[in-house]
């Protein structure tokens, strides 16, 4: 697993140490402990961690809610650990979305798999979002190419097939993507009319 940047929000020093130990045992991660609620939002934004660990009952959770809203849900996985290990609650939380619940620092061996689950889920969402963005981009490109074809057909009195061939040939000659050529053509046509 790649090196992770982790923020642990925990006021109790002893407990924070136990959690850090548990995390360190699972790999070489960059771990920052924040014990003061002051400036929390700013510090998290500055560090842009891969994951934030916070007690499910910590009042500062509402600050994280605001961060999640600003950055868009799922931009950053927020994991939480709880005092009492409630397996059902943990599972339900992980399945439901924004937050994963990680069991107490007294059982460091249990932090790892749940941390993995939280991050895997995060990456899954990220992948889904990337795929969605790629699909959207492809659709946009097709629209641009269609417009460029229409411009060529009108300006040069050629049919659609010939317009497409011309775009493709220009792209190959210049070693550029067809969508880029189409984009330039559409922009230039816009300037000329």
């Amino acid at each position: 697993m790649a090196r992770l940047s982790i923020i642990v929000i925990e006021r109790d020093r002893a407990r924070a140490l136990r959690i850090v130990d548990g995390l360190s045992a699972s790999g070489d991660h960059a771990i920052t402990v924040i014990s003061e609620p002051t400036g929390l939002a700013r510090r998290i934004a500055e560090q842009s961690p891969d994951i934030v660990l916070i007690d499910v009952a910590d009042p500062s959770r509402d600050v994280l809610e605001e961060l999640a809203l600003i950055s868009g849900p799922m931009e950053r996985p927020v994991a939480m650990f709880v005092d009492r290990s409630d397996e059902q609650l943990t599972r339900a939380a992980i399945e439901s979305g924004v937050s994963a619940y990680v069991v107490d620092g007294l059982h460091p061996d249990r932090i790892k798999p749940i941390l993995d689950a939280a991050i895997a889920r995060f990456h899954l969402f990220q992948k889904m979002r990337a795929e969605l963005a790629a699909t959207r981009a492809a659709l946009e490109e097709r629209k641009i190419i269609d417009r460029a074809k229409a411009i060529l057909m009108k300006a040069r009195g050629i049919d659609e097939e010939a317009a497409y061939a011309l775009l493709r040939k220009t792209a190959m000659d210049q070693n550029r993507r067809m969508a880029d050529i189409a984009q330039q053509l559409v922009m230039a046509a816009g300037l000329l009319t």
Partner: protein
Amino acid sequence: MSMASLRLGYVPLTDAAPLIIAQELGFAAEEGLALKLIRLQSWAQSRDLLGLGGIDAAHMLVPLPIAQSLGLGPAYPPFDLVMVLSVGGQAICVSTALAQAMRGKGHGFGFGDPLAARAALAAVAPDSLRVGVPFPFSTQAELVRRWLDGNALAAGLSIHTVPPPQMADALASGEVDAFCVGEPWASYAVERGAGALVLAGRAIWASPPEKGLVLTRDFAEGRPEETGRLMRAVWRACRWLDRAENRATAAEILSRPEYLNLPTELSERGLMDRLHVSATGEVREYPGFVRFHAGAANFPWRSLAALLARRIARLHGLDEVRAMQVAMGCFRTDLYRHHLRTAGADLPGASVRIEGGMVHPTAVASEKGQMILGPDAFFDGETFEPPFALR
């Protein structure tokens, strides 16, 4: 009647009183309920526990179930607000530095004049004003935005979430310049010398719904017997709380270590309508600072849901009409009518009203003849009516 046990989540604030009083003074027991009151530390925790089945009902910020219904939270089963628990109870507090500068310009800290307070603040405030609220979806956020909308201060306004018990520290450390919070946390900041109170929430909006009783729709519809018992117990506690002679007792009970764990004197201020606006003990009387029952305060008007949803939709780029429609569906006037009629609650003829329309207490048609609604005007004179009605 068998004793049923319900788990109720609350966040330590004066307006958790209806749940605490329902249990402590036996209104719950009268309905055959034993309430297990669970003190929570954040609204996110309250939402998560309700969504995941860790509690059966919650004392919750009125806009929170609305935001959930609009998909602005984790994917939990739908939440319903079955009754409003409190109206008002918020105060706006500015830092000691700003307060001194405002005094320097002759501001008298009257606590009830939004225009004077805003002008005094605008004269001394930094270009970028940072204001703390307890949660992104809160009545406090609505009040602050409304107060500063259209004013020069709005351009540089940024709103930050700060948990209520940390408001005093955030103000003292300069993390925020001002905040809007429910009692006793505004008085707590004053007592700590972190700031001075400039305005009651009710001065901005005469009838701002603050907390509601929120259940999952599955519970509210699937367990009607317990839902009804809970609503009646809490409704009677609200009625008890709005008798002036009971407020001192309420303050004493709320302040106990297992609830707010603060000196009684602090929660008394909001409950007895006597706020200290500064640490030097300048007292301002604000009649009806917080209401739990009077003026049909408990009725979950669907127009309130629409009004709050409109702002949330605008801020988050959602379709306004659709947002209003969805939000109105989670304010359960139908359950309120069904379960509280037998307890003797007077019920209005309509479930939607024109918000902001009343400057004075006004009588409207109800099942028992007439009911008196409290004033609900906005200081900016806006009136709001949802574009459609739902019974």
